[in-house]
């Protein structure tokens, strides 16, 4: 029983991080209609930037998260403006919009990874943050970093929710996400909003990177696996659905930890894909998605 | 016997009932018109018959006596139902000839895996196919564009090509979804001339959705009028024209111009 609870805790702590990255992926998908295959590298950049702020400039951890979010967000906006903008403008067709976006995403991820390597080197960097002694409830061991991660994730989600639902800009962002032409006709500066969406998505990926830093250390190659898990989370929760992304992240986290615990630990990374494929096959709109936005 | 029959045909999208218990017969050898206001369910009807959408339970679609309800689209095509699309849906990166050959697909005389080894029979079958498609191309007047990508054609030529692609299937029933949309009056005449010529040549049955009333009235033997997914009138064109329910659906309550103007003025006050 305690073991089960332990596995659940692990599932939830990693799940919220999956969820946050998935949130960004979903946001980009709804906003720009692209599945961003380079998002894992954005997350990695965020983690490194957080590290730079925390250790080179000795910024407190929470502020490092914020700084990393801002810088990564700006980086995302530059990437969107320079590269994706052209592709989204080029519009339909199987060469450009469908496959092209995916290939461009892969290319971008290779480029970003290489740039990070050239800046920070290939070795993993520790991200020690002293949260103090873990909580101990009976036999269950609950490190404070887990709690901090969960809290930060909740704050992020809440912030994003408030931003989207309660602010005027948030309303515009949703309008752009749902229908760009109409948003344009309502006087919304759509290109700006798209950049904003991309920036916000990148910023929250950065937050995820900084949050996971103390748990898993920071490394140039960290993005790819996270991307796969976050994709799984986004699809499981329903692509484009923001609460779905978080729930999907939790589900993927719990599913793979329970799978690792009770089926076979060696195949842990396969479980996420398994869940992804099962959901795609039997409920393409995702578990919480209202309507599947399958691209033709 | 009717070539195409629908019984209790229904389709809802979410809460919206696009087609409601539609009963319709298309007689073999006839030209059947389907008219109705925008959103009355004409395109949905096409999509249901050709298997693009799945029908609601209880619906029956029969073609040549066979129940084809909810068959896969290609199965229906294989049985001799060809259609055109309002948005044409041409294979624009393929050449004109290839577009037709795709239509001819169901008549290809070799198995899908056979071309891997490309035996003589395959080569010969391909040659025969190309020849007969060239014949069709000359009927619709696109022979000289055979090797051009379909995407490079002009608007009128595209309409002709979409007609040709449907004809390449050697169908028994040809369903045309607004074939004349966007054409100039002379081109409409040319197109309808070709359609009638094809009908005579191949003994087709035609089902036409058209907005240009003149086309429907001039060419159709029988007309069905849809409104809000329901059949509100059917008969020969001249009968339909005078049908009270039809007129009602198109014009609403029979208000005179003055009454309408009065309603406007009242609202403004």
């Amino acid at each position, binding site marked *: 029983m305690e073991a089960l609870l332990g596995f659940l805790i692990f599932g939830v702590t990693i799940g919220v991080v999956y969820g946050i990255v998935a949130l960004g992926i979903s946001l980009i998908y709804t906003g720009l209609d692209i599945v961003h295959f380079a998002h894992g590298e954005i997350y990695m950049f965020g983690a490194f930037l957080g590290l730079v702020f925390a250790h080179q400039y000795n910024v407190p951890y929470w502020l490092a998260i914020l700084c990393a979010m801002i810088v990564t967000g700006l980086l995302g906006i530059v990437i969107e403006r320079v590269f994706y903008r052209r592709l989204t403008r080029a519009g339909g067709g199987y060469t450009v919009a469908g496959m092209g976006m995916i290939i461009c995403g892969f290319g971008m991820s290779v480029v970003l990874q290489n740039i990070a390597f050239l800046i920070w080197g290939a070795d993993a960097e520790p991200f020690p943050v002293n949260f103090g002694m873990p909580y101990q409830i009976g036999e269950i061991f609950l490190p404070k970093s887990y709690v901090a991660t969960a809290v930060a994730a909740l704050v992020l989600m809440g912030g994003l929710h408030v931003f989207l639902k309660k602010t*005027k800009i948030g*309303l*515009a962002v*949703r*309008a752009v996400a*749902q*229908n760009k*032409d*109409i*948003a*344009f*006709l*309502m*006087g*919304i*500066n*759509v*290109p700006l909003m798209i950049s904003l969406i991309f920036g916000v998505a990148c910023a929250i990926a950065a937050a995820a990177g900084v949050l996971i830093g103390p748990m898993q250390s920071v490394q140039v190659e960290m993005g790819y696996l996270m991307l796969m898990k976050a994709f799984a989370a986004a699809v499981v929760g329903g692509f484009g659905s923001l609460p779905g992304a978080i729930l999907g992240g939790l589900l993927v986290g719990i599913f793979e930890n329970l799978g690792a615990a009770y089926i076979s630990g060696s195949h842990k990374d396969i479980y996420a894909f398994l869940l992804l494929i099962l959901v795609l096959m039997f409920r393409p709109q995702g578990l919480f998605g*209202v309507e599947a936005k399958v691209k033709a | 016997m009717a070539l195409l029959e629908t019984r209790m045909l229904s389709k809802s999208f979410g809460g919206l009932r696009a087609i409601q218990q539609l009963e319709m017969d298309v007689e073999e050898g006839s030209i059947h018109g389907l*008219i*109705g*206001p*925008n*959103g*009355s369910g004409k395109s949905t009807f096409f999509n249901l018959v050709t298997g693009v959408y799945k029908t609601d339970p209880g619906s029956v679609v029969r073609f040549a006596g066979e129940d084809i309800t909810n068959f896969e689209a290609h199965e229906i095509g294989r049985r001799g139902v060809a259609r055109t699309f309002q948005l044409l849906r041409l294979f624009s990166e393929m050449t004109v000839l290839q577009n037709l050959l795709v239509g001819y697909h169901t008549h290809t005389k070799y198995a899908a895996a056979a071309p891997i080894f490309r035996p003589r029979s395959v080569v010969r079958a391909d040659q025969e196919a190309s020849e007969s498609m060239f014949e069709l191309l000359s009927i619709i007047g696109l022979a000289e564009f055979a090797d051009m990508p379909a995407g490079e054609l002009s*608007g009128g030529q595209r309409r002709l090509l979409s007609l040709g692609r449907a004809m390449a299937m050697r169908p028994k029933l040809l369903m045309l979804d*607004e074939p004349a*949309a*966007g054409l*100039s*009056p002379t081109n409409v005449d040319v197109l309808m001339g070709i359609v009638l010529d094809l009908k005579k040549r191949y003994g087709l049955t035609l089902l036409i959705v*058209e*907005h*240009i*009333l*003149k086309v*429907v009235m001039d060419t159709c033997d029988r007309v069905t009028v849809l409104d*809000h997914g329901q059949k509100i009138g059917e008969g020969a064109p001249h009968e339909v*024209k*005078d049908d009270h329910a*039809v*007129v009602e659906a*198109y*014009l*609403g*309550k*029979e*208000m005179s*111009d003055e009454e*309408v*103007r009065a*309603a*406007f*003025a*009242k*609202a*403004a006050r």
Partner: protein
Amino acid sequence: MLEVRDLQTGYGRIKILDGVNVSVAGGSIVTVLGGNGTGKSTLLKALSGLIPVWDGEILFDGESIANLRPDRIVNRGLIQVTQGKEAYPAMTVEENLMVGAFTRSDKQGIRRDLDKVYDYFPALQERRRQLSGTLSGGEVQMLVIGRGLMANPRMLMLDEPSAALAPQVVLNIFANVYRISQSGVTILLVEQNVRMALLLAGYGYIIRDGRVLIEGPAEELSGDESVKLSYLGGTVASREQMSS
């Protein structure tokens, strides 16, 4: 107020409009008529900046707005109301209306206009907290018109507000359009429903194959035999035409 001169535009390589001339006087209702695929919607898209103008001139209040970004055109008070099916289904009615007011920052004015919209279309007020995806076709059409009004327009361009609606609803909507025009908003109405449009408008254009074919005062057009014969399709036939 709006002056379109020799407008040419299209999609990709395909030219849709080949020299269209339209002019709309301030405070009037002008209608552009034509069947499917004649280029009516393309005209509106070019006017609101959604597609590039290839050639020609668009003057709004004497200033060129050709190839401006859509939001800049909106800022000048020229608002397009899209077809009824294009609301934001995942937003509530009120949120939809607030999107329309995005460019404005005067809270009181927005409040006033919101009340005005609810006054025009009381059905919307009843459903202001509902997701707009649950509305009926007529209500959605009211919603998109209301959303256009929220931008405080000086000129409103309506794209087929009667499409796929029951006659009674069409009458209601047209009556409200008339009311809006009476409040001082210039209206450009693009329609297939020739009879209703000509009853509402003062002046009409009929376009076909990307060119203006006939133009004139509404009464003249509705009396024109050639108009009846060639352009009045299924949805637009009047009683007389059906039986002629």
